[in-house]
């Protein structure tokens, strides 16, 4: 029986059948929305035309209109700034913590466990808590800073254009540290102890051991952390939606929140789709990078 199967499968590519369910799923639930969104962005679809059968094809003019619009450029800049700053701090702090807890002192495991909590709280809950903490009159952050005499008057964190962005980035760094820490920690456990021992014998100091053993051995883990982190951070929505909703005056508008606003509060569906596509294209490019590096990484780590 098995032989027959093997013969048949050898001839007509039977193994493709196994991929079929996943393929069908992907085409229907991932492929279709993406294609449909691109089609939407090339048509004129607003309140007036949503229900009419023939929607005017207008090529890329939605994109042209959007790029002339200061809010789109600002959302792109905001998203990039937010992502870069978040990743930078999350990564550095997460890395440092991972190294620290890798020292295997008596409470290292349990404390590391506690540090995972930010990752487990739903983001909307975190966002609400930080919104209260950053509140200018009753927020604990202002009270703390005032008690320490660092500021004279309460800072209106979420109401001022400059500080609102800072508050968002600060919150997201707090959320993202454990993710970075845990992945780096896992990477650290794969480095053979013998390497450090032989480096010791050769007289390498701790900085050299870090630079020439830890970093190169962690390269695949670092790549994964950075690229996955980039993707998660770049498509931020819930945090911004709850904490500032893109305000004040669009100064914390991200690509995702701007797309939402265009589609669901201004009813400019094709513009919303176009913004979502810009977000998608950027993320797609980054994902390709990930696919390019990730398999090599896996082989290396083994």
């Amino acid at each position, binding site marked *: 029986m098995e032989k027959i199967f093997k013969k048949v499968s050898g001839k007509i590519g039977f193994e493709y059948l196994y991929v079929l369910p996943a393929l069908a799923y992907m085409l229907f639930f991932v492929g279709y929305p993406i294609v449909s969104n691109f089609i939407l962005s090339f048509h004129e679809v607003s309140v007036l035309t949503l*229900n009419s059968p023939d929607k005017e094809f207008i090529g890329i003019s939605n994109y042209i209109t959007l790029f002339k619009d200061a809010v789109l450029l600002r959302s792109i800049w905001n998203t990039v700034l937010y992502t870069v700053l978040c990743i930078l701090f999350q990564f550095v702090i997460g890395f440092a913590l991972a190294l620290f807890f890798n020292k295997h002192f008596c409470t290292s495991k349990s404390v590391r466990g506690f540090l995972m909590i930010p990752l487990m709280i739903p983001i909307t809950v975190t966002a609400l808590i930080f919104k209260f903490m950053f509140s200018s009159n009753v927020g604990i952050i202002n009270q703390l800073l005032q008690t320490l005499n660092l500021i004279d008057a309460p800072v209106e964190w979420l109401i001022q254009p400059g500080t609102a962005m800072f508050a968002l980035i600060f919150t997201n760094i707090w959320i993202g540290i454990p993710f970075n820490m845990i992945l780096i920690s896992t990477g650290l456990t794969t480095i053979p102890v013998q390497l450090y021992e032989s480096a010791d014998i050769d007289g390498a100091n701790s900085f050299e051991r870090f630079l020439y053993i830890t970093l190169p051995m962690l390269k695949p883990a670092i790549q994964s952390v950075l690229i996955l982190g980039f993707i998660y951070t770049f498509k931020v929505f819930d945090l911004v939606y709850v904490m500032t909703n893109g305000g004040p005056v669009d100064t914390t508008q991200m690509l995702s929140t701007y797309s939402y606003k265009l589609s669901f509060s201004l009813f400019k569906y094709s513009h919303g789709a176009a913004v979502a596509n810009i977000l998608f294209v950027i993320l797609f490019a980054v994902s390709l990078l990930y696919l390019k590096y990730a398999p090599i990484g896996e082989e290396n780590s083994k």
Partner: protein
Amino acid sequence: MSMKKNLIYSVIFVLILFAAAGCSKTDGQKDGIKNVTIWYYWETEKHQKTLNKIISDFNESQTQIVVKAEYIPFAEFKKQLSIGTSAAKLPDIVIIDNPDHASYSAMGIFADITEKMKDWTDLNQYFEGPLNSCKLDGKLYGIPFGSNCLALYYNEDMMKAANASVPQSWDELRAVSKKLTKGSVKGLGFSSLPNEEGTFNFLTWVWSTGTSAFGINNPEGIKSLAYVSDLVKDGSVPKEAINWTQGDVMHQFISGNLAMMINGPWQIPTMRQEAPKLNWNVALIPKDKQYASDLGGENFGVVNGQNVDASLEFIKFACEPDRIKTYINDFGYIASRKDVAETQFAEDDKIMKLFAEEMQYALPRGPHAKWPEISNAISLAFNEVMTGVSSPADAAKKAQKTIDSIIK
């Protein structure tokens, strides 16, 4: 053997996939009974109970139509309607915020009921403002549910303590707000969100100068922006207001953080319940050139579909003058019908009488199919001056550019 097993699993998986796609639908109509679904967004329990009472009365009054209501939160409401439109999954009646009515009529969600309601003589009884918000290009797409407007609330004790009198003009309002601002208490508050709720409040300032919502970049429009900006600069209006809903503003007021606020009558039942000892009163919103307020309230919109006639039966039932009298006060609304509004409030109900008086000065927003975009430009301009991002003149110029590109 394992390959065979794998094959079986794959086939099962594919079957499940198809089965899942094939499910749903089919909650058919039995025995000629028509099911009518209503979507609404009132979050207050009293509002919900009152609506359900109207519905159960209707369901008991006849045997052909069964009405049921579904609650959708306000923030989700427009989104659900838009998604429902593209997925062809809409309710039969939508109780909708009146400035949005025109947009959804233009979208084709609502049925043109001009012909069907032609013989309904009650239509003559409706106030012009609310009825116009149901119309687009002269056609009727709904029936007003009830109306409200904004007025000035003030804390009588604080007013007395500061030895101030109720302001009537903008200058007086600015001076009194400053006088009432002490420590953590701010003189005046109104919802300033960058959305429809904010626009609802901002337009009272715009209209009071005599200009329209479509003409911001003129001396009057700039004046209204500058006035609000000055109130914030004085410290009389807290900057946090840009994050406050009208409900938040009301709670700041009853907890004594605001000496005055701009708000609507639907807050009154909650205020009396949560702060029964608070001494407050209402007055007309102080004026620049003329008194102005904003017409709020909801309309019944009839969704274009199978159940237009059944839906209209319910709406006619709910809009009978004697029936409106039984529920409109529980909503804290003012009836949209003249014959009901005239006798709606008891002689000694000074507060609601004031709202009825303010109603004369209330203007409707729009109606314009792209009102949400215009509204966004207006609320953004006010947010810009309140946060100090732009000067009133620059904000007005920018808003006007957006508005002009929409109404061209």
